[in-house]
């Protein structure tokens, strides 16, 4: 390898962990929002989607405020678990999580809403419990949309730059993800290194999206939607 490849593995680690938590959070959130009507629902949804329209610097500022050593969440984490997230790769995970949640939430909500409620009602008349209905009918039928959301969230996590730079900083070998490596290589005039990472990340993105399109088409045929 012509260059240190640790940014690649760090990016995979950050995006992987962030996507896992995004998956759990959005599955619960979307399921709740798809089924329940309550006062202020529209406002809560706006809050969930807010990171989509905020500049990365605003998200980064908010995260530093919350997770900084003296911030309300940062001080609690340090006090209870002895964990500090600012200027660590954990901060990069949190930044990826925040920017990925709206994408995953939208995909998952749309996927749940696409599942015909008659299927759930048929299953109820057949005596299936609500948990079994979710596990064996709703989730598998929503899976193509949920999976698309996972891929998008993972890609967004890999590509996260602005908020990551603010909360995790640029510490080579510790918080240097691929987007940060590209930016600082370019700043330092190392065009070869920047182009190398651009090529890697672009190829990865293209392969991911092509495979996702293929998989969705195949799955649509299986579910009789085409």
């Amino acid at each position, binding site marked *: 390898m012509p260059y240190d490849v640790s940014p690649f593995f760090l990016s995979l680690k950050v995006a992987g962990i962030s996507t896992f938590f995004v998956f759990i959070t959005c599955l619960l959130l979307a399921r709740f929002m798809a089924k329940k009507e309550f006062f202020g629902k529209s406002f809560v949804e706006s809050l969930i989607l807010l990171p989509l329209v905020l500049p990365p610097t605003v998200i980064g500022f908010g995260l530093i405020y919350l997770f900084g050593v003296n911030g309300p969440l940062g001080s609690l984490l340090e006090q209870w678990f002895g964990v500090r997230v600012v200027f660590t790769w954990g901060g990069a995970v949190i930044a990826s999580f925040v920017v990925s949640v709206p994408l995953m939430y939208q995909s998952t909500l749309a996927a749940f809403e696409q599942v015909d409620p008659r299927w759930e009602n*048929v299953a109820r*008349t*057949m*005596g299936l419990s609500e948990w079994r209905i979710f596990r064996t009918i709703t989730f*598998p*039928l929503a899976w193509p949309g949920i999976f698309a959301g996972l891929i998008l969230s993972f890609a967004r996590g890999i590509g996260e730059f602005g908020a990551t730079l603010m909360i995790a900083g640029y510490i080579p070998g510790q918080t240097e993800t691929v987007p940060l490596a590209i930016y600082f290589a370019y700043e330092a005039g190392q065009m070869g290194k920047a182009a190398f990472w651009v090529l890697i990340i672009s190829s990865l993105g293209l392969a991911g999206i092509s495979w996702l399109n293929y998989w969705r088409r195949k799955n649509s045929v299986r*579910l*009789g939607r085409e």
Partner: protein
Amino acid sequence: MLHVDFKKRLEHFELTVEFELRQEILALIGSSGSGKTTLLNCLAGINQPDQGEISLGSKHFYKDGQKPLKIQKRNVGYLFQDYALFPHWNVERNILSGLSRKADLTHVKELTELLGINALLQKYPHQISGGEKQRVALARALAAKPDILLLDEPFSALDDETRSRCQGELLRIHEVWQIPVIFVTHRKADAETLADRVIRIEKGQMTEQQRT
């Protein structure tokens, strides 16, 4: 004996129904949007009446002042319009999905034989025809040995020949199972062929019709 006596406010009118049904076949006829499917949904527990009572034997499905009986506890076989087969499961799993793993499957084997769908068991819903879907959905609705069978426009998507065959199968099954059957139809001819009794619902008001 099924006892139905309830009111439910719909968008443009109030659905008011009152009837009793033994182990007979009842046809519900009437124009679209007159409240027929809502009536089936109230019996199944998908919708709840505003007031009144629904009971089947000693089981109270709905009674004023009491919590409605959960759908899962009603033991209702419901064949939805367009059948609503689970698209990700093959025919066999669609039919068996409501049964426990230890359940005796003798009656299911008889059912699939009676309905002529044994050859379809490994196929997926998108691989079978409308008539076959109808028979699979009927087998699924009956597999859990329901105490009552509800059919919403079961023959609407079928050609004349398939319709006539499916109606014959339904009559045979009813003869063997002896449970109350309620089916919704737009076609008076279906009601004449199958039903012991016919109820017309228009804008939420029911009238029992004499069979010709």
